């Protein structure tokens, strides 16, 4: 649960910034325009912020589902598969999101 609480506090801060950037600080139509998104991905500070948001939110989310599933059944095999499945799902999702960030920064074509 400590992981859940720590990622929760971080997620509240990071998601708040993300929502503010997507429609309050920057007008929504501008925020979702191709040029604006390209420029912010290639700002290393914002890229690090997005990557942090990705990791924190996915770890918090999948760990939360893991907690619910552990409560459902407490057999050894179920618990093992839930833990393995959580790690795989988290790594796969973070990997796919990180791919987007890396390709946006270093990828070819526009």
């Amino acid at each position, binding site marked *: *649960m400590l992981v859940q*609480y720590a990622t*929760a*506090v971080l*997620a*509240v801060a990071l*998601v708040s910034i993300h*929502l503010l950037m997507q*429609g*309050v600080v920057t007008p*929504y139509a501008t925020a*979702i325009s*191709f040029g604006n*998104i*390209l420029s912010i*991905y290639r700002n290393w500070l914002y890229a690090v912020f997005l990557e942090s948001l*990705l990791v924190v*939110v*996915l770890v918090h*989310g*999948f760990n*939360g*589902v893991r907690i*619910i599933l552990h*409560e*459902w*059944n*407490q057999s050894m095999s179920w618990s093992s598969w839930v833990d393995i499945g959580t790690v795989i799902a988290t790594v796969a*999702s973070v990997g*796919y*999101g990180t*791919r*987007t960030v890396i*390709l*946006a920064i*270093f*990828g*070819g*074509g*526009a």
Partner: protein
Amino acid sequence: MNSAGSERVKNKRGVMGWLNPYHYNLERWAYVFQRVTGVAILLYVLGHLGDTSFFVGGPTGAGPSESSWAFVSGIVENSFGHLILVLVVLVVFFHGLNGIRLILSEFGLIFQKPSAIEYPYRPRSLKSFQRHLVWVAIALAVVAAAWASLILFR
């Protein structure tokens, strides 16, 4: 009855052990909605990962693609998509603010001190400030959703 320590306690209620509205108080409802909104947010985030990946051409892309981004924007940037975003803002704000309440209560920061048990035997943990925070979470979530509506449907 088996010998001491040999029978494992099983959770035989499954999901209905917590997703059950019968005889629930405000804190229990907040707990149910914390879990329901959490799962909903996770599903939205996974979808969001998918649609934002079209910025770089989707699962098979190699870099920023304006045509690919225009394609996915054409699908999600409409009234229905904006309605989904307003609902996402609503559940995210509730989940986050109620989560802060849960963390504060877990560390005992918003409870009154224990007292003698007196009729009608209501626990101090279910009183005043802690309870008010549930309503604060709901109210702020509604305000945030209304503000998102103004931004998205202007």
